[in-house]
């Protein structure tokens, strides 16, 4: 199969995972033809391909051009990583207008020779082109990446339905109420017990499964939502990451909703760290990402 890897606005972490496929990497590259992957090979132009993995979100007109070109030349396209699927951490930039970001970093009216068109809002890949399959994760776990590729190169594209991180987590409950809301930098949690019930800001119930819940159940580190929102969160307006986590923390700590909410001063960074740019989460009542986002056309 002719395979290509295109990278848009990204950290290249997904390609680091590609290089970490160990034995399978050698099988994969000897059985298939890696026609384009600027990180690894020298071809300068994307030619016709059977499978194109696109990592990164669309941050500029150039990213859009590359995505469109890929769509025209690819049989099938995979959105690789949480940036391509939901915007990723860089999507937090949608709290500000592009004009303001540029003004504060460079200077008012700064212009650059050869600069591609700026886009005012960062958006995931499928806001611009049709995507055939999704493999979210920041980065996607190496085992999952491998099995995904095995399927994809055999001709089937795995669908992305699934449950939440909690479905894979093997911690047990704890007596309530507990102190909180708490952060990882506060005192360490009790291992093996539900972190959310212990008052920690754990995004497990709202996050797509597939990682084996290693952070939470093996290391007692709260889930930061890096696999992106679960299907339930994407499909049902009533399941908002912020509202749902706050509700569970109220139950865990026995405090009032107001008290719990006030204790979290950075809700966008906490609840929507990997998915602020996801259009499906924007308009929900209560909740949604709209209150955190810069509104297009608004003067600052």
């Amino acid at each position, binding site marked *: 199969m002719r395979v290509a890897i295109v990278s848009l606005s990204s950290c*290249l972490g997904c390609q680091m995972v590609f*290089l970490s496929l160990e034995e399978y990497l050698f099988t994969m*590259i000897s059985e298939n033809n890696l026609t384009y992957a600027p*990180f690894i*090979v020298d071809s300068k132009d994307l030619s016709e391909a059977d499978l194109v993995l696109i990592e990164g979100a669309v941050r500029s007109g150039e990213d859009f051009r590359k995505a469109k070109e890929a769509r025209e030349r690819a049989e099938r396209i995979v959105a690789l990583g949480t940036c391509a699927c939901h915007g990723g951490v*860089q999507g937090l930039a949608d709290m500000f207008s592009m004009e303001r970001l540029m003004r504060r970093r460079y200077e008012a009216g700064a212009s650059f020779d050869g600069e591609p068109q700026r886009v005012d809002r960062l958006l995931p890949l499928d806001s611009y082109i049709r995507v055939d399959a999704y493999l979210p994760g920041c980065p996607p776990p190496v085992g999952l990446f491998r099995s995904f590729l095995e399927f994809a190169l055999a001709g089937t594209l795995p669908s992305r339905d699934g449950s939440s991180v909690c479905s894979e987590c093997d911690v047990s409950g704890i007596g309530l109420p507990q102190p909180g809301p708490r952060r990882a930098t506060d005192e360490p949690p009790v291992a093996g017990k539900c972190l959310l019930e212990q008052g920690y800001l754990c995004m497990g119930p709202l996050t797509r499964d597939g990682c084996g819940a290693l952070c939470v159940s093996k290391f007692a580190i709260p889930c930061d939502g890096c696999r992106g929102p679960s299907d339930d969160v994407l499909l049902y307006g009533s399941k908002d990451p912020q509202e749902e986590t706050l509700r569970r923390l109220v139950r865990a700590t026995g405090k009032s909703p107001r008290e719990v909410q006030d204790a979290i001063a950075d809700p966008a960074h906490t609840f929507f760290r990997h998915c602020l740019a996801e259009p499906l989460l924007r308009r929900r009542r209560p909740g949604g990402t709209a209150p955190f986002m810069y509104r297009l056309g608004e003067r600052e």
Partner: protein
Amino acid sequence: MADILIDPVTRINGNASVRVVVDESGNPQEVRFQAFGYRGFDQIARGAHIDNLCPIVSRICGGDSLFHQVAAAVAVEKALGVVVPEEALRLRELSMWGQLFERHAISLTVHSIPDLLFPSSDPGLRNIISINRMDEDIVKKLMVLKSLGTLVLRETGLRAVHPVNFIPGGAVRDIPGETRQALIARLKEAGPLLIETGRLMKLLLRRNEEVVNALGTDETSCISLQGDNGLAIMGSSLTVIDAAGEVRNNLSPEEAAEKVKESNSHHSHIRGAELAGLGEIRVGPLARLNINGRYGTEQADEELEEVKTHWGFPLHRSMIGHAARILEMIHAWERMIDLLGQPPGDVLRKTVSPSSGTGVGVVEAPEGTLLYRLILDEDGLVKRLFITAPLQFNLKALERAVQESARFAMGGVETGERAAILLETAIRAFAPCIPCGIH
């Protein structure tokens, strides 16, 4: 004559292009290393709780994720006066050597060795995939080294890309004793391969002497952290030397951060950086070596001697950066074995109470000095964050190296394609990291 445009520059870390502006008589007049796509990470972090800072800045760069996390964590700890337990510092150091080892291995095997192995082959053959078709064994061997760095990083950071183990105040979990022993065994097993690769690298550079002497020979001042007994990857003392190797300045991280002067480039989103009063300055494996003079571990220093004898000291030719990379890998390998041999710790973290403060964190990332300056507001939330990445310091030197290479390539009998290959080879000698540079 038409400009030379290479778009994209391939086999580097990130998306960039390079344009050589050529004057009427065909001389390279200006070089523009172009990279766009500012993502706003310094501004994204504003308003974030310190607990959220490390996972956010980690996403600036997948390959250097840990270095961003540690620089940010150190800045928080300095701002709040937190003293991190020794064991946690050791674990951080171990993990950073792991990531540096991995990054250098990728930079050498995936990006640069193909150019040195087959200097006259066409671009289609200059990659690990084509080499793999000809000789599976050599690629597998080289990738073993990359996997070794990944393994240490995964065990210490609990994840190989965007590790989760390190937080302001220390680390969450130590490596259990039996894993330490297993890692030591794996590292020791790879020792001969590593030394062999180091010698291969030096041999390849000697065989490509003409290229080494033509692609970037500028002599500049350097800055890096200075260790007590050789190379330091974390620390609190920076040294600046001039091109002749004379010490010009010793700076604390805070003083260095004060002196950083960034300026817009008219053709790229990467802002150039200098130190006020000290002018242009280079960072990276060569700068680290020039400043510290030695690595401070037996094998690395032994292998270094040959480099010094052959190419002199201080070292400025940017292609020798590849030799410095493999020597750093040998040093990292020795340090990792040493750090793994020390007993695991009981207390790895201090509880951190957010409040106002200002802190600076400096680490030596694989590509060079990485500087974080952080201001926290009265609620302990991020008020301002300033990041200066290695590529920002090296930008001018990189552009000059490309210009020098263009003069060399065009002055000779090189064809257009061959000239382009040389320019890209010159760029790869810097192992530039675009996502870090733009952030």
